């Protein structure tokens, strides 16, 4: 899958979960400090990725949900390892 496509799809998931407009954040915007993401929202982002790409991501990888770029990298790792 193209990086741009994956990026924009996961951006949509994040925007939906945290109820923030897509143009209010980019790849490096910090989820916790800049967007007020809490542990439940991070879990919901993880679940959103799992559902969309039919992958299973273990709980200890929640720590990778820190910004959009990291989330995309995490998703890519599991999509490619499928």
């Amino acid at each position, binding site marked *: 899958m193209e990086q741009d496509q994956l990026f924009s799809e996961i951006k949509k998931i994040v925007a939906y*979960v945290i109820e923030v407009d897509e143009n209010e954040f980019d790849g490096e915007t910090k989820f916790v400090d800049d967007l007020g993401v*809490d*542990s*439940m*929202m991070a*879990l*919901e982002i*993880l*679940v959103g990725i*799992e*559902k969309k790409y039919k992958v299973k991501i273990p*709980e200890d990888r*929640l720590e990778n949900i820190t910004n959009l770029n990291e989330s995309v990298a995490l998703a890519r790792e599991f999509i490619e390892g499928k």
Partner: protein
Amino acid sequence: MASEKRQPVDQLDFNQVKEILPQRFPFLMIDRIVEIKAGEKVVGLKNISGNEEFFQGHFPDLPVMPGSLILEAIAQTAIVLFCYGNTDQDVSRRTFLFGSVKARFLSPAYPGDRMLVEVTPVKLISTGGVVKGVAKVEDRIVCKGELSFSVNKEKAT
């Protein structure tokens, strides 16, 4: 004794439900668990009585069970799903809080209805989870949705 009572049987009575849920009157929205498969599925039963105190106000001339309390029944069934078979013995003394809810209400529940609440996991982790829930009266779907919840290690004061 607690571990003995939590042996995998497929039903829980009211007292066993109370051992798991931290909620008490008037906020226990599940009377019994009629089906349970650890980590996979829990079906709770709520017999909706015309005597429920919320019917005094919701609504005086048209008693329908508040949607928020139907969600509470789903959430409490989710707590049973989270706790049942969980090897952490302190789990039932923890506090559970809603993260988010996405739900659709499809038909009302009235006094006399026997509401079955089925909850299945989307993802459960050590500190919370995301579950799907469906509340039905006979074959009629009352509410369906997805909710997330977190588990606090300390009891709410």
